[in-house]
């Protein structure tokens, strides 16, 4: 049984301007201990998926399809069960650590809160919880006495580590990292990535790493899933995908982040023209066709679903031959 299974997940936000389909039919499976990277530009629906897993989306959002965590339907759970599963089944490391931490409470207390909420399951009392906070902080490379600090007293990298420590508190099986390194500078980014990789190996965590930076995913994830306009457009083992992307968008993403020291990428920097489509007003046919450099006539009228490229590799492009 997979740890996380998304079956035909569809998420529609309701706003004053009408319904906005942010996720339009996504299948995703993560096994225990597996590392999966989810890549795409802003607005493609990747952060929505993170929220959908733990049922954190706004109350009036329409969620269809199923989200199975350890075989159980998250959306069929009773509130008490849901609260118990949150953080202990799966935990999220949010982006923008400065805003994800309560500015008027000490960080130690915020981590302790997570522990105390699940104290029964973890078998902890108050004193043990406090000690555990210290251990967690040290595990992510911070001094235990940092627990008494307020968020604004820490640097960006330190705050991100705090979020990671907090996510690990209840020993989840799945860690969802939503753009954890986006707001950080490169050196700190590398440190945080190394930390995540280390922890993942250490504890056998499953990791869902969400980002728009494909190069980061290459080194940390076994599988890659590329999303565009609310759908998966390509997926497969990361090394293969990175080396030989089959979907034009996947290709553009891979090329967008040049390899330092590689003269080839220096000579041909590439960006993708145009903007991501507005989820409320998608173009007809394949949503990528307005920006695609190999689009054919068919692309503007017929939408394409995922096709098998090879074992474990799929891409949703008309240029991929359909194998029966």
């Amino acid at each position: 049984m997979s740890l996380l299974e998304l079956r035909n997940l569809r998420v529609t936000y309701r706003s004053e301007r009408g319904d906005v389909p942010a996720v339009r039919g996504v299948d995703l499976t993560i096994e225990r201990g597996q590392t999966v990277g989810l890549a795409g530009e802003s607005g493609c629906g990747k952060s929505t998926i993170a929220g959908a897993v733990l049922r954190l989306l706004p109350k009036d959002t329409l969620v269809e399809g199923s989200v199975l965590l350890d075989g159980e339907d998250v959306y069929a759970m009773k509130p008490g069960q849901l609260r118990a599963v949150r953080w202990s089944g799966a935990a999220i490391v949010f982006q923008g650590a400065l805003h994800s931490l309560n500015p008027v409470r000490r960080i130690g207390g915020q981590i302790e809160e997570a522990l105390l909420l699940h104290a029964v399951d973890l078998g902890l009392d108050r004193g043990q919880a406090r000690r555990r906070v210290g251990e967690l902080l040290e595990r992510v490379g911070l001094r235990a006495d940092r627990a008494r600090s307020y968020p604004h007293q820490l640097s960006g990298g330190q705050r991100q580590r705090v979020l990671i420590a907090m996510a690990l508190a209840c020993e989840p099986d799945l860690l969802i990292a939503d753009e954890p390194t986006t707001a950080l500078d490169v050196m700190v980014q590398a440190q945080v990535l190394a930390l995540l990789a280390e922890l993942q190996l250490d504890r056998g965590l499953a990791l869902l790493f969400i980002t728009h930076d494909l190069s980061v995913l290459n080194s940390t994830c076994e599988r890659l899933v590329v999303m565009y306009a609310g759908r998966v457009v390509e997926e497969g083992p990361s090394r293969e995908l990175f080396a030989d992307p089959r979907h034009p968008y996947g290709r553009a993403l891979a090329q967008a982040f040049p390899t330092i020291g590689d003269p080839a990428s220096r000579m041909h920097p590439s960006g993708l023209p145009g903007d991501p489509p507005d989820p409320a007003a998608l173009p007809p046919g394949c949503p990528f066709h307005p920006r695609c450099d190999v689009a054919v006539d068919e692309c503007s009228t017929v939408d394409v679903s995922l096709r098998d490229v090879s074992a474990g590799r799929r891409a949703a492009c008309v240029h991929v031959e359909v194998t029966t």
Partner: protein
Amino acid sequence: MSDTVLEPTPADPVEYSPRAAVRARRRASVVELARHVRADRIALAGLIVLVAFIVMAVVAPLISPRAGLSAVDSIGNPAWARPSWDFPMGTDHLGRSVAAQFVWGARVSLFVGFAATILTVGIGSLVGIVSGFFGGWTDSVLMRLTDWFLVIPFLPLAIVLATILDRSLWNIVFVIGVTSWPSTARLVRAQVLTVKQRLYVDRARALGAGRTHIVRRHILPNVAPLILANVTLAVPISILTETTLAFLGLADPNQTSWGKTLEEAFGAGAISRNAWWYYLPAGLGIVAVVLAFTLFGRALEEILDPRLRRRSGGRR
């Protein structure tokens, strides 16, 4: 999702000068603004009510003879008369038509409201811009002055000033204007500081742009919407202040305003006589105008300040 800046669509006549582009953009912004207002029914209602009162105030001389306000000319009228066909809002203790006082009172109340606000926002914006832009000593001194004004309890100061000066219409405008500018100054200064920090001002300076140019082209356009929204919300405050000052007997004795009507009604014992027609209309008029301004002003603020708009959208 459309934003405030619209590019001229291919349907528009294509002009190539940058000035024309700016003009087209401004026109488009106004159109967008009008569309938003029309869509927001509450704001529209507020606007309609306001316009109705303003029109009534302006045409006052046509619909209600000035003589109706004079006690001497009203000697023949029944005093304390209930509303009737002859006197739609009844008469007061001197036989004067309350309806006439209502209509003419609107003139003064609205006039003072607008005039005082222009003074308030004028002084406040000037201080705010100068203080925020120049910084340093100028800023410190001006801010100390502003702080002092904020600390002085507003009503007593207004009362004292009104006492010192003769009781006249313009003096009331002056008093309200001079005591209310500090909060505007603070708001404007904060906005100027935000704009100043933005990179493009630094770049403009690096390019050699002079101070006036920076103020005119960069700071003013970014501060103007805030000032406009502030004006719409400052008018009701000015009106309420005039009402209070008039009630306390500090208004121009030769003019009638809604506050003055209330003062006279109270003084003549309208309460104990249950002459509700005397004190109800003026109060309701104030509530209507202030409420209309506030509703319209809030909608305007939401439209002009993009930071506020995101709250009315769907997802974060």
